């Protein structure tokens, strides 16, 4: 299955936007585990996910073609 990953703020400094072909990853929780292994600095950062432009608070299932945004704490204003 193919997932598009987009990243922002300090996370974008070590994790570029990319299309990932992932097997065995069915949920956002599994995706987080995967990304924290691939990009170790991510494990030390508080971050939120948005799935297809909606912020998600809990684990949800992924399907091919989804876009997942990886977002560090907001600091607008």
């Amino acid at each position, binding site marked *: 299955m193919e997932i598009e990953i987009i990243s922002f*703020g300090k996370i974008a400094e070590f994790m570029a936007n990319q299309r990932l072909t992932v097997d065995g990853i069915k949920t956002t929780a599994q995706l987080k585990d995967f990304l924290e292994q691939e990009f170790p600095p991510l494990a030390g950062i508080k971050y939120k996910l*948005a799935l297809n432009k909606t912020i998600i608070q809990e684990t949800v299932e992924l399907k091919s073609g989804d876009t997942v945004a990886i977002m560090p704490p*907001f600091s607008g*204003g």
Partner: protein
Amino acid sequence: MSDRKVKDIFINGKIDPMFIGESIAKHSDKKNIGGHSLFLGQVRNDEIDGKMVAAIDYTTYKELALTQMDQIREDIFKKYPLSCMHIYHSLGTVKVGEICLFVFTSSIRRKPAIEACSEIVERIKAELPIWGKEIFEDETHQWKENS
């Protein structure tokens, strides 16, 4: 969420004080307004570990930010009897002393305008996917965190 068009709030670079003056002036034909409340965020020359902030570089996840802002706008209009609400946030580089956020609410009476304005500022800071990179005078940087 209704179908109406999502409004943009982003401005490239600083928000000009004269633009704020013009925004105020545009309300002189809204004759049932009794009070306006404005909040302006200005970039501060914070000192962090002996280095001075010279500017903040703002980025956003624009599609999500505008959807979130639209929800905030809808909630606030439901909660307070406002005549108008205008929101502008900078993207890109805003130097120390320049304005990066402009929230402007108007109502028949002062209290709804004041309370709505303050609530919008809190929600913008907490809910909009915007990131500020503090650029120091020596061109190093750190990522801002809202307190």
